[in-house]
């Protein structure tokens, strides 16, 4: 029997320093096969919440369930074995290793006989990477690097794929390509949770979204409804002004 939802993070309080939580009681639910976006202003705690779910930031309160397995205290390096993959915002590939080595390394938890087929499947999904399989990942362009980071995460055949700002630092054209790829990956049955500053691009592919502010839930709803609400768009999503939108922000 499948669990009713793919991922639940309930009433999460988390932060780097004890007593200084950045996420102050946030709750999100991601259904099987959904794309869910986490949006909100800078410093809202979106990335910290995602890292807490990934086991990289200590959780001081609340619970995280992956399917029906409690992973609240699971060590970060065991998450991939549970089927939860995470793509960090920056430094998300091993630059001194080749494209292929990055994939092989990430596939180590798969049964030995299936790894080569898995690498081949990823290279088929990302033809750009197949052409550069022997190149050191540090020499890839920004867009290709992001694709490699996603391919690396998919090596473990995750049930849930989490991405922290996959559009960061990419040109509008590349953002379109990356997001189209994410839709394709969802269509193959992978559940996706993504943190985004680029709200317009995220809402265009997401089913639902949560808007966080000051470490707490502020709004939630269907992506189309949130995008259409002028109040929310102006306050939280940077979609208010005529010129704001894709590529309209300064990348950190």
């Amino acid at each position: 029997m499948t669990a009713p939802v793919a991922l639940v993070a309930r009433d999460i309080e988390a932060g780097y320093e004890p007593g200084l939580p950045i996420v102050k009681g946030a709750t999100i639910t991601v259904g099987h096969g959904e794309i869910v976006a986490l949006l909100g202003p800078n410093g809202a705690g979106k990335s910290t919440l995602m890292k807490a779910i990934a086991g990289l930031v200590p959780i001081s309160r609340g619970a995280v369930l992956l399917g029906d397995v409690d992973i609240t205290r699971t060590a970060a390096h065991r998450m991939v074995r549970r089927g939860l993959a995470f793509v960090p915002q920056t430094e998300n590939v091993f630059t001194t290793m080749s494209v292929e080595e990055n994939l092989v390394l990430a596939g180590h938890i798969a049964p030995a006989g299936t790894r080569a087929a898995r690498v081949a499947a990823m290279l088929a999904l990302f033809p750009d990477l197949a052409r550069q399989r022997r190149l050191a990942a540090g020499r890839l362009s920004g867009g290709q690097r992001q694709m490699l980071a996603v391919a690396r995460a998919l090596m473990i055949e995750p049930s849930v794929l989490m991405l922290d700002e996959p559009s960061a630092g990419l040109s509008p054209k590349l953002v379109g390509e990356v997001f189209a790829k994410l839709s394709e990956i969802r269509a193959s049955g992978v559940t996706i949770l993504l943190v985004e500053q680029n709200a317009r691009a995220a809402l265009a592919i997401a089913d639902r979204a949560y808007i966080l502010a000051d470490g707490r839930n502020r709004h939630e709803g269907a992506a189309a409804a949130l995008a259409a609400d002028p109040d929310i768009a102006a306050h939280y999503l940077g979609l208010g002004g005529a010129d704001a939108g894709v590529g309209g922000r300064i990348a950190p």
Partner: protein
Amino acid sequence: MSLQFLADGLFAGALIGLGAVGLTLTYSILRFSNFTHGDFISWGAYLALGVVSALTGWIGPAARFMPFSFGWPLIVGGLFAMALTGLLALALDAALFKPLRRTGHGIVMVIASFGASLALRAMLEFLFTSEPAYFSRAIQIAIPIGFGIRVTPDQAAMMGLALVVVIAMHLLLTRTHIGRSMRAVSENPALARVVGIDVAAVIRATWLIGGALACVSGIMLGLTVQIRPQMGFDLLLPLFAAAILGGIGSVWGAIIGGLIVGIAEAGAVQVIGSEYRSAVAFVLLIAMLLVRPRGLFGVREG
């Protein structure tokens, strides 16, 4: 000028290089300068000597592999000693470095390793006295190999061993999961955790391998010169020079750095005299740090 210095330098360089490989691995994965690495070399030599004495005491003297000065007890003893030196490094990590890693201060680790280095050396002096010891008292006849260069059979065997060990290390780092994991942790420990690598296990593997390689250098030095409690500590400066010259984290860099330091030292003895031998490594180290801090084969920091 005789070309003998080239052979002597290559041999010293291979020995320095093997020690530097362990140093460069622990440096790039644990992110601190480990001053006890020299003492792992001394301990490796004494542990091998201990196992060899125990074996010959138990079974009686064994025949030498002619024309070498050693027989099978040194091979068996060497393998045992490699494992024991690795375990010594692991034990030191568990007792000292692991608790300190949580504080997150690299400099605390460096100072602690300096203290541990003194303690390890003092223990050797206490156990074995500071009198030199030898694997064998057999006299080795150096064989001329042309160009006025002479090499003893033991030196030739040790060069071959060094080459085998370096190739094995290269294959380990490029073809095995633990090797790729070590490279991953050295580049980006946070991402390594994200892709499912157990960083604690990688650190344990690094100490085992670093200790075993230090032991091989100790046996090379012990077999061709002598065994003293100070022997490893005296090598520390050339080791750091080789590791930094080659680029921190690079196995081939450490070996080539070791060969450069070894040949430069041997050449300097010819030109400016043996008093300045140890200054050569220091000059190379400073020159490299000024001109190209990431070393010959190093990747950019951070």
